[in-house]
């Protein structure tokens, strides 16, 4: 139960800046996720906290104690590896007791704690089994039990679900979240799966090429992305280029896709370029002759590709200026050719200058 403070952490491998002056403050008992595409530095950052990767500059603290100068075996972190790293030469019980033995915990107490940890991950009675007798999901549970039994300051999970099949992944992530709440432990979680990150986290740091793009709650990450990268990496979105026409206090008139929108929270003056994000599910396709709902803005275009996905349909609409909008909505019967799309300008997110 410890806050993690990362201050200006940086590491260069050859000419690649794997982690580029990253500062993150994880609160005590928080489930904090590092999200990003492969090669963004999220795993390197996690390994810095565990001590398997040295910092070129910066420092890391658990609470008030600086830990980046400690060797990895003295940091008291519990790490769950992507490939589980369950020792094949020890039984399940031996694996879970391994860290307790290193801490010279008395045998009686160790046995008790091992049994409790196995029960927590729903593996009670598996202590005598060997790792090669277990399934992938069970190995994952052993790895988690082994990490939490030592009562670590923080729990570090490195893409723990990526080797499981889709259904088990959803089940396990719920279980990890349940355990975290039960133990009240601080978790640093690494994943490239945006849905997983949104589902499980208190807060998310989206990373790209060694830098943090945004730190926010899942809801804010999705609904108020700070950069075009965050908007397009988390979920899918339509990014539209616009130009500020008139500026009036907090709001501004922005010319985009052949129409003009009045938007709040726009930075910059008249003539500046901005990028607008519009989620596919914020758009509606109007039936022929249907009037636009109140406050909504309409655009006209040509219906393009249509993908039927079951609950919803995905389709694209080409606008007059060449921009293509992706929509995720119910498709009115008989729609074809020239169509009208409606959206609420409040759901447009302004992302500042392109680039």
């Amino acid at each position: 139960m410890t806050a993690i403070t990362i201050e200006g952490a940086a590491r260069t491998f050859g000419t690649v800046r794997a982690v580029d002056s990253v500062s993150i403050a994880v609160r005590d008992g928080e489930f904090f996720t590092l999200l990003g595409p492969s090669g963004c530095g999220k795993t390197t950052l996690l390994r810095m906290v565990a001590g398997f990767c040295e910092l070129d500059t910066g420092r890391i603290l658990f609470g008030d104690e600086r830990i980046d100068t400690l060797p990895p075996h003295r940091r008291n972190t519990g790490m769950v590896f992507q490939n589980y790293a369950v020792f094949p030469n020890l039984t399940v019980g031996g694996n879970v007791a391994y860290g307790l033995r290193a801490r010279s915990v008395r045998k009686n107490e160790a046995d008790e704690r091992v049994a409790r940890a196995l029960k927590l991950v729903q593996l009670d009675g598996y202590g005598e089994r060997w790792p090669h007798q277990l399934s992938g999901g069970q190995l994952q549970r052993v790895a988690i039990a082994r990490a939490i039994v030592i009562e670590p300051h923080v729990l570090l999970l490195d893409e723990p679900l990526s080797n499981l099949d889709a259904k088990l992944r959803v089940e396990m992530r719920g279980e990890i979240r349940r355990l975290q709440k039960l133990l009240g432990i601080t978790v640093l979680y690494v994943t490239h799966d945006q849905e997983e990150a949104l589902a499980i986290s208190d807060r998310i740091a989206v990373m790209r090429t060694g830098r943090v793009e945004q730190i926010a709650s899942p809801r804010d990450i999705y609904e108020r992305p700070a950069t075009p990268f965050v908007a397009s990496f988390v979920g899918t979105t339509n990014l539209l280029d616009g130009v500020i026409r008139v500026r009036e206090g907090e709001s501004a008139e922005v010319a985009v896709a052949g129409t003009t929108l009045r938007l709040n929270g726009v930075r910059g003056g008249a003539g500046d370029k901005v990028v607008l994000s519009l989620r596919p599910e914020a758009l509606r396709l109007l039936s022929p002759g249907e009037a636009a709902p109140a406050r909504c803005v309409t655009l006209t275009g040509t219906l393009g590709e249509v993908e039927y996905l079951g609950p919803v349909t995905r389709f694209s609409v080409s606008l007059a200026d060449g921009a293509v909008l992706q929509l995720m909505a119910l498709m009115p019967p008989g729609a074809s050719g020239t169509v009208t799309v409606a959206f609420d300008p409040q759901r447009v997110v302004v992302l500042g200058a392109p680039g």
Partner: protein
Amino acid sequence: MRAFFGRNAFPLTIFTIAIVFLGLFFLWPVLKVFGASILDASGRHFTLANYTSVLSNRFFLNGLTNSLGIAAAAAICTVLVGVPFAFCLARLPISGKAALLALAALPLVLPSFVSAYALVLMFGRSGIVTGALRSLGIPFDSIYGAAGIVVVYTLTLYPYIVLPVTAAFKSIDVSVEEAAQNLGASRARMLRTVTLPLVLPSILAGALLVFIEALENFGVPFVLAEDRPILSVEAYKLFVGETTDNPASAGVLGMLLIVCTVIALLVQRGLLARRNFATGARRAAPLINVSPALRRLGATYCWLVVAAALIPFMAVVVISFMPFSGPVLHTGVSIGNFTQLFERSYRPLTNTLMLATLAACGATLIGVPIGYVITRHRSRLSALIDVVATSPFAVAGTVLGIGLVMAFSSGFLILTGTWLIMVVAYMVRKLPFSVRSAGAILHQIDPSLEEASINLGVPPALTFARITVPLMLGGIVGGFVLTFVTAASELSSTIVLYSGPWTTMTVAMFQALEGTSAGVAAAAATVLIICTILPVALVYRLLRRHELSML
């Protein structure tokens, strides 16, 4: 700086030990040989006279061409024998594959000069088969000479081709072959244009090993070459020759051997450049369905090759239990040869067992940590250590022996004539084995296992002992046994380094060969075969899992 050393204390310690050991007992002796070849008789002035005198000498030039020609012929013959063998083993539905593979690997651990001697016993001037043929009126010229040497190399070195090429045939992904057939290639065309090119790197790697082994081998040409000059034998004769003690010329021959090896290595590298064919089979290509006739043909071929390679060894064992009077063999059963062999003392046997055990312990203790550090801590320094630690393989045993005598018969460390110098020579010669086998096992152990242990609070050194070593144990034991076995049957460096009380079984056999006591030689050969087969049979399961995949 402190942080750097703190982080790298373990690898740096290992590197220091590796550099001191290899520098002292490998690089310095080789440098001594080089020095002897470029210095005049006073040992002070640079001269090329040694090279000009050797290279203008028709006898030594013949030696050079003989050595190179025989090594090249051996490489070609092993490829011709080994590749079809590997193909049958990997891709044809023949039965008894496990046994075939085990028997095919066996010559690797058996002393090759025993095979050579067996051929002499059978096909030599007074050999059994020669005699039988003559009595039937069939004229038969004896086995001596280049052809005989190439035959022995082919029969004893073909596993160097079979093991890697079988693995390569098995590692071709099925989709590659299916793609070829889908694009309209017939099965024969597919084999020629896709399958064979994909295993070519393994064939070349194996051929290089055969070439180097054939070039440096001392025992086989010593038994079979008679008066024809062979570099590795001539270097020995020049160095220890009673009449012409000539370290300078011996040095020149040693350097020529090393240069030939390096050139072969560069040629192989050049041929392999831009041919990185790691397909990483997700699903291995299936067995090829052939007619029963072809299948039987393939099986017959494999069993014939295995039999041809192993019959000489069996023949020696049988012959060793038959009575001899001098070189003449009589029918009957007798243990006279063995009593004669151990008449004076059991020292050769105990020496062999003791020296090989010490060498295996030493090579394992040094080689496993080096292999660990090279595999787990990648850096320029570790790449350099890797090259140095595996290069003893490319230096002929006689040359290393000569270098060790030159380096340690005077000065601060005098080892010549002791048992220690023999152990050191074996350790250096077998170090590539333990380094490479340790590396091969480590590649199969996920580094995150060690990180998990450290993360749970166990310091790195203790993690190495508690997690890494137990996981490596099978491979370590396998490497230990291979080192023991090959050290026990080592002749080339032993013959230069041994002194009276430290006579080994190989030397006893060598002396019996030089004399005329064929029976004693056969008995010594049998003892050597037992010394090598027994440990290998005991740990065969381990070897199969860890070592065969390494080659």
